[in-house]
């Protein structure tokens, strides 16, 4: 599946037509805490990760917040 992940083209290793944010994290081995996630500009909160889905061509942003300031 080809998507736009964090402003870059990304090919995900899956045969599914639609996947969830939780599945994306598994595919990409993302284990970070404190993420801000958006699908096509729409904020996805933590309790929606397992249900929010996207498809090929969508724009997905996964932004890792880290301490320091």
């Amino acid at each position, binding site marked *: 599946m080809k998507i736009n992940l964090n402003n870059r083209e990304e090919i995900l290793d899956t045969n599914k037509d639609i996947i969830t944010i939780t599945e994306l994290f598994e595919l990409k081995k993302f284990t970070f805490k404190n993420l801000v996630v958006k699908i096509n500009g729409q904020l996805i909160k933590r309790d929606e990760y397992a249900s929010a889905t996207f498809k090929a061509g969508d724009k997905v942003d996964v932004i890792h917040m880290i301490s320091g*300031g």
Partner: protein
Amino acid sequence: MTFEQIKEILKIKTVGIAGCGGLGSNAAVSLARVGIGRLIIADFDKIEISNLNRQYFFYNQIGEFKAPALKENIKLINPLVEVESHTIKLEPKDIVKLFRNCDVIVEAFDKAEMKQMIVETVLAEMAGRPIVCGIGMAGWGKNDLIKTQCYDNLYLVGDGITEANEHTPVLAPRVCAVSNMMANVVLEILLGECN
């Protein structure tokens, strides 16, 4: 644009600054110097000696609340700036209320969960409002890793990877570089691109 023209535009603009630590204090001072009209600054904390390695405070201010102390320092630099200071631990409802009339919001917290909280609040409840966030500025050196990324109305400034901890402290050179780059992004949002 001449500096006079720039000041004409900036004097009717309001910037909200969430946190008056390393990022917030230095970004606020930079924006005050160029003549921003109004700053709304918020922090719950008091100044400690350990803050002076990067934050825009003075030795004789140790023990004072950060938000009013920063207002005092800004007034010494540019008394024309209107500064509204709030000593408060910001929660989502406060962010929406305090910053509702701001043209741009600057995220200047230290903890990752607070950064996440304000970004999610602004994206969900203040749709379209630009927010500039500092992500990754601990340690020293590695100038070339510091960058600006844009995701719609969310701007991220920093190296995106260096987390503050005991062995990688936050220090003036890199924190001030990032905070001033954040102020620079604010100017770009308010003035448009520089020719």
